């Protein structure tokens, strides 16, 4: 279920590759290194998810009133000036 969205470059379906395997006999080595690649990608994805979460956590905080207050003061100051 969790691999719904990220299959674009993810593990290929076994069925689809069964034929190719018979013809090409990809070496076990190659399979191993692509598994390692998948693993690395997965880890990078995990870090990415975390990174966004860390950022979004602050984005989702309520903005302190101070911000709007400062902006409101600046706005009224500038409209006084004309």
């Amino acid at each position: 279920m969790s691999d719904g969205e990220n299959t674009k470059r993810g593990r290929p379906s076994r069925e689809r590759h069964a034929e190719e395997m018979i013809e090409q006999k990809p070496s076990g080595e190659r399979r191993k290194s692509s598994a390692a690649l998948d693993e690395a990608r997965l880890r990078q994805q995990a870090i990415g998810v975390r990174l966004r979460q860390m950022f979004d956590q602050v984005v989702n905080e309520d903005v302190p009133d101070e911000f709007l207050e400062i902006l409101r003061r600046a706005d009224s100051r500038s409209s006084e000036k004309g």
Partner: protein
Amino acid sequence: MDEAQQPAPSRETDDEAFKRELVQLIPHLRAFARTLCGDPAAADDLAQDAMMKAWDARASFQMGTNMKAWTFMILRNQFYSEKRRSWRQSQLDQEAAERTLVAVDDPEAPVALDELRQGLSMLPPEQREALILVGAGGFAYEEAAEICGCAVGTVKSRVSRARRALHAILEGGAYDRDGEPAGDAMRSILADAERLSTVR
């Protein structure tokens, strides 16, 4: 494309539109500032300064262009000019980093987030900001390059170096935390990310 030179809309309307957009960006400015400063109070000061700088410079902003990138650039410049002026001590002082964790409601989250923050703090600043802009802020490489005032290729290589370094740090190598075995950070991030990605 549309060559008809429209009469400039009234100042007020422009200001209002600008302000509306700026207000929507405040949460993002705060988040970016937090990643630069670490300390939430200092980060909010920085975000407020940047917001005011953007407001004061609104006449030079072209409505319809990317205001988020523009304000991020202002904030970043502000951060580095302040840093040049006064600041030598904490890039991300530990206490401050820990204080930011208080507001997390997921009991499992703090561990991994704490470690991620520590890992980030170990990266060179230019790698850290590139990774944050692209990996968390949702900016394209081109936009991040504009914000950082460097070439697109430079951003790309910074991001990829940051990713590799962060991975290595979290995986074990450079990262050490008293008592806890290395690799735990990565494991908890992985477990957590899996859970999160099912939600997304």
